[in-house]
């Protein structure tokens, strides 16, 4: 984006004029919501604000949205998949495999209409974002570079303070809520002697011809480093790649930010000893010196500090150690070390600090994406990835489109009294509600371990409310952030990989890696639904001090739905039946469905009815079995096996598929056939 900052200065004059007029009237112009950046996250948030009819503006320094994508990735190929066909019509399901589209009600604004490539061109993304902003009429102030953000205390303000944004013209904008979606825009630089000789990913040539017959050293081991290598692999003498720690392959870590297979050609040539190679060393220990021929030599910082030697006299590791790996001279050294968040525009009063040791490049936020430093400041998009860095997809479009929605829902409740959207159903619909979501929900699927669905039970568990995609780590504060009551127990539906399945050094192809039997479901390795049952809402303490490796505090009961090769969890016996048994046992009730005839029988032979009959048949909404079902039933002694109810089944025989009509209480077991053998 920095490259386009200059262009931003020459925006349309009319726009500047309006801003010049405003402050003259009554202080700076006010917005309830200010969004910084018109990238995918900013536009996504703008969409939700627009739909809710909120007072908002997006500030963008470039003349068009998505300026990052006008330059990056340098080699123009996006590695987010654009799967146009899944064989299914379900729009929500299809989003699971569409990593580029933003969420909207407009089916034309799906990325598959913009590119047919599986790994689309970045230009298509720019075009897409442009259309997204235009078609939806999002309110974006282009060519407006926010140079400084500060805090202005005010008791009237929603959060006790206003955010004052100052643009490049010196005009101020006052905002109640600040939504920062500026992404990671500052190239990461590591300081070591000779770092000035390196070329950055952001400016290095992308023309392979420039690398013909050269020795190339690339610093970094992320996708940008490998993408750069991939581009010049065939024309160089060799490429060496240097990074602090081992390469992390996304198919081993199940994290889309790690090295994707599409970029990993160099791994191939390294392992086949085709001169290219991978090395691990801490860059801060190294130094690069330029020799007489203008080539670059790798040495240790330690040697440099030994004395003030001229370039030729500097000790090289190979002087002592003549088989030192990097003893060759390099023609080029390219730095591909990733990006950092731009903290520079935020005033100290905002207390926007960088995340911990492992996510220095991100601003520190809570699980609700609100800054820890100042209330009302939310971080969206790539910059919000500290929450699930190296875990799930929160740093990428297909993940943060859902976290943006979650933030919007939080804000709707906090400032407008709109409770978190939910649907209420009778308890007999519980199993099917969960089955539906685990089979189509995309937010759960992408943001596994971060966003989870929550089922809030009503008194006596006769009905429930279904809340979608709540930030899981905010579970303890559920009542305050959603405006819903959780007094009678709850279920949390999450998607999880197996505990020990993902990791850079894990063999993800080991024999018997997948589990096929329902009773081993808890050992499932691939992404699968996990349902937590809590009798009471966990406390903040319980969430914070939950056991290691647990996504949530220890529940009252837990259920794993066995992983599925097709990610289609609709198998009646393999998936739904164990789920129903789990729900039944948590709620201590019978959740089976019954035909009207069975309900009729129960109604006349029991004082109480199972929930399905109570909530359906008794309200004259029973399921009438057809003649063919009836006939079949007679052959198999069911559902006509009325004799079984309250009595023992006469013949005692139970079909191989079981006798579904076996009534709830009292449970009758026809197993006299066993007895006879005793």
């Amino acid at each position, binding site marked *: 984006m920095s490259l386009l900052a200059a262009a931003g200065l020459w925006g349309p004059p009319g726009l500047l004029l309006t801003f010049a007029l405003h402050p003259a009237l009554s202080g700076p112009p006010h917005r309830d919501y200010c969004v910084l950046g018109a990238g995918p996250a900013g536009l996504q948030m703008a969409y939700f604000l627009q739909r809710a009819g909120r007072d908002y503006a997006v500030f963008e320094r470039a003349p068009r949205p998505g300026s990052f994508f006008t330059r990056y990735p340098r080699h123009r190929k996006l590695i987010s998949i654009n799967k146009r066909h899944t064989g299914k*019509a*379900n*729009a929500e399901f299809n989003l699971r495999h569409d990593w580029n589209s933003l969420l909207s009600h407009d089916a034309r604004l799906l990325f598959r209409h913009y590119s047919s490539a599986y790994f689309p061109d970045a230009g298509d993304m720019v075009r897409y974002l442009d259309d997204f902003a235009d078609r939806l009429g999002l309110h974006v102030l282009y060519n407006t570079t926010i140079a400084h953000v500060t805090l202005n205390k005010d008791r009237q303000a929603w959060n006790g303070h206003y955010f004052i944004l100052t643009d490049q013209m010196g005009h101020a904008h006052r905002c109640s809520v600040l939504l920062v979606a500026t992404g990671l825009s500052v190239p990461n630089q590591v300081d070591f002697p000779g770092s000035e000789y390196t070329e950055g990913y952001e400016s290095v040539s992308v023309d392979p011809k420039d690398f013909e017959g050269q020795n190339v050293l690339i610093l970094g081991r992320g996708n940008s480093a490998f993408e750069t290598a991939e581009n010049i692999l065939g024309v160089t003498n060799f490429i060496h790649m240097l990074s602090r720690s081992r390469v992390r392959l996304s198919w081993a870590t199940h994290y889309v930010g790690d090295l994707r297979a599409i970029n990993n050609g160099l791994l191939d040539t390294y392992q086949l000893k085709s001169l290219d190679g991978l090395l691990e060393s801490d860059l801060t220990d190294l130094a690069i010196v330029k020799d007489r021929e203008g080539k670059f030599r790798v040495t240790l910082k330690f040697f440099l500090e030994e004395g003030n030697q001229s370039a030729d006299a500097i000790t090289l590791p190979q002087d002592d150690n003549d088989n030192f790996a990097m003893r060759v001279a390099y023609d080029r050294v390219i730095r591909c070390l990733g990006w950092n968040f731009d903290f520079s525009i935020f005033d100290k009063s905002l207390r926007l600090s960088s995340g911990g040791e492992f996510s220095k490049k991100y601003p520190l936020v809570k699980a609700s994406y609100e800054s820890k430093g100042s209330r009302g400041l939310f971080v969206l998009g790539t910059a919000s990835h500290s929450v699930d860095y190296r875990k799930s997809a929160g740093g990428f479009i297909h993940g943060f489109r859902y976290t943006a929605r979650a933030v919007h829902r939080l804000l709707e409740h906090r400032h407008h009294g709109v409770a978190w959207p939910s649907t209420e*159903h009778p308890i007999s619909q519980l199993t099917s509600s969960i089955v*539906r979501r685990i089979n189509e929900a995309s937010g759960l699927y992408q943001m596994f371990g971060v966003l989870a669905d929550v089922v809030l039970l009503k008194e006596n568990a006769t009905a429930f409310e279904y809340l979608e995609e709540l930030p899981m780590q905010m579970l303890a504060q559920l009542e305050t952030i959603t405006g819903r009551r959780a007094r009678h127990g709850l279920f949390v539906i999450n998607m999880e990989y197996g505990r020990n399945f993902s990791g850079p050094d894990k063999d993800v192809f080991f*024999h*018997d*890696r997948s589990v*096929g039997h*329902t*009773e081993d*479901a808890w*050992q499932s390795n691939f992404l699968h639904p996990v349902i937590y049952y809590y009798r009471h809402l966990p406390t903040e303490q319980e969430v914070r001090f939950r056991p290691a490796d647990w996504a949530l505090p220890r529940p009252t009961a837990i*259920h794993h739905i066995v992983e599925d*090769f097709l990610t289609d969890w609709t198998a*009646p*016996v393999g998936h*739904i*039946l*164990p789920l*129903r*048994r789990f729900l*039944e046992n948590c709620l201590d009730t*019978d959740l089976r*469905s019954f*035909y*009207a005839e*069975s309900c*009729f*029988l129960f*109604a*006349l*032979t029991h*004082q*109480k*009815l199972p929930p399905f009959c109570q909530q359906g048949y008794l309200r*004259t*909404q029973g*399921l*009438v079995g057809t003649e063919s*079902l009836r006939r079949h*039933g007679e052959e198999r002694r*069911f559902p*006509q096996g*009325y*004799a*079984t109810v309250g009595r*023992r089944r006469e013949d005692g025989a139970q079909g191989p*598929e*079981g006798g*579904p*009509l*076996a009534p*709830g*209480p*009292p449970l009758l077991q026809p*197993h*006299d056939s*066993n007895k006879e053998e*005793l």
Partner: protein
Amino acid sequence: MMSSSFNIYRVGISFVMMCIFYKSAVDSLSELSPQKYFSTLQPGKASLAYFCQADSPRTSIFLEELNEAVKPLQDFGISVAKVNCVKEETSRYCGKEKDLMKVYLFRGNILLREFPTDTLFDVNAIIAHVLFALLFNEVKYITTLEDLQNIENSLKGKANIAFSYVRAIGTPEHRAVMEAAFVYGTTYQFVLTTEIALLESIGTEAIENAHFYFFHCKQVLDLTQQCRRTLMEQPLATLNIHRFIKTMEAPLLTEVAEDPQQVSTVHLQLGLPLVFIVSQQATHEADRRTAEWVAWRLLGKAGVLLLLRDSLEVDIPQHANVVFRRAEEGAPVEFLVLHDTELIISRVEGNTHIEEMQEDEDEDVQSPDMDIQDDEVAETVYRHRKTQLPLELTVELTEETFNATVVASDSIVLFYAGCTSTMLLTRVNCADWSDLCTKQNVTEFPVVKMYKEGKHPVSYAGMLGAEDLLKFILLNRISCPVNITSVQEAEEYLSGELYKDLIPYSSVSVLGLFSPNMTTAKEDFTKAGNYLRGCVITGIYSEEDVLILSNKYGATLPALLLARHKEGKVESIPFANSRVQDIVQIVTNALLETFPEITVENLPVYLRLQKPLLILFSDGSINPQYTKAILTLVKEKHLDSLTPCWLNLKNTPAGRGVLQTYFNALPPLPLIVVVNLHSGGQVFAFPSEQAITEQNLLLWLKKLEAGLESPITILPAQEWKPPLPAYDFLSMMDAAASQHPTRKEPECTKETNMQKNDKKQHEDKSTIRKEPVETLRIKHWNRSNWFKEGDKSFRHDNKEL
């Protein structure tokens, strides 16, 4: 409760142990002069005295042993003393020579026995001999089989026998038997032998140092019958005998109807496992016989109980026929399916052995029924998954076609989830078009909605069956209410002529009569008509000449006319100031018949009245006389507190099940019952020997009311609980985390598989050993379920190709 009684027992045991093994430094051998000694003897008290020369060595091996015997003998109330024969007080017990000193046993001051010191070679011998002497009557010493048979015969029907063989008198085993006899000698006849031949003759194999038998003679009434014998398998020691006898005293077989986890018997306290044989009413006799047989086999090794499934509050897995519970506190109850009683025996006898080799087995084998579909709807859907439905008659709508279709033609849309003219029957698969369904406010499946041009879509709220749906569709063809424009038309409407083809679907036609100026009432009625659309025909008449109609039917405006087509009657109901809801209520109530034929479809409507049902069950059409009798009773207001109805088994075969529940077997029809569904659940049957007449019925109902009749059955009032347990993944995860082998609840072992040593298993076993632990479980499971291979392994092998 269990633990507390267990503790009591523990105290008891330790007391016994103290008695026997406690050695006190204080209770050492007292040394007395003869005179002093005889002065201490108390009548009835036993005392053992060792007379020795005063100048004899202070210590000898015998004295050491005797010293050790002091405490145990004191516990039996026997005092021990060393009497020093000094020269001044010579006693006749004092021997002449040092090595001829003897030990004497007195009771009071009567000499019972004298022992040379070499008989009392150690502490065991001392105690054994002393007790043997004292318990001369309680313990019969025999040498021949004949002696044994004589004793046996004399005690049949009277007392049980504790028969023991010891290699020699004075051995530790002998001491143990004597100690047991000291405690139990009055309860059982103790018989002792040292003759190996005697033991051989009663069929003991592999004769060892000692054997202990319990002869169950007390229950033998036939003298020709032999007493049952139970051999104690544990080594002959006091504690073992005590434990063994305790189990002999316990009832052979106990019937229980409580949670196996809660049951507590003496066996558990003695550290023995419990075996529950699961029984139910119908097979009770046979099960009891089986259980008794097992109980005899396991006597002294395990407690056997008969568990009555029918009266059990807790659920136990469907196929489990044996429940096994080990004595360790907190050990899980195991539910087993065992097809052979020998398996029960071997499970108990080889318990530890099985455990060792079964560890994997246990965790892998799962209750077979948890996988069995017990949801009848899901089951039929699955069973019919390959059935082709004639769906070409209905149009499949998508997100794109939905709006166009619904706008262009009146449609009935069935919204269903993945898993019906001039009207267009259409359907939407919400698994594919979830957005559309959400927009149409369809959140539950299946849902039927009717879209009519220019009108709000109507959700169908009736039974999901062809008949009711057809009724809904047909009745929706006319507007609700229909605007009637002339008196003549109104008459046609009331007579059923106007909508002749719809009358079969709506037994009642409702006509609202209003003067033209009653706008609010008209509006409310229209709303009510809209609400009732699809279930009844409604019409509205508010012309100037409305009085003609109101006068004719004796109604005051505004009024409702209800035309009952079946009976050819028109009644009028005033409803001034009635709200929409009230009108709906009035009409709904009017739709109810006084003596309806109850069906699966209409029962809910009648249940809403919350009154006990009086049901006449009939196999085929009802006898008109019965109808007459009941209608008369209704007319005379005798049935106001009941909902009278009848059930035709031909139309509603489900009624058979109802009757079977009430009467156990299908009774002769017709018959009348009163079912108090809403309070108490009592079912009363009209005496079948009485004719169904007005008088008889009335008399019976009076008796009922007066509480003089007793119910034939009371319907269960339990809540509907989960039919089966779920997998307890949390415990499995805990178990894995704590590195212990996982144990699954419930545990159901398929023992049969263990027995089958077919080749396949061996092959499997050998391959398993090569694989890492992590993969073991899955394979293992497959093996124990090899009979399911057809479908199971298919699933297994095909994942992750």
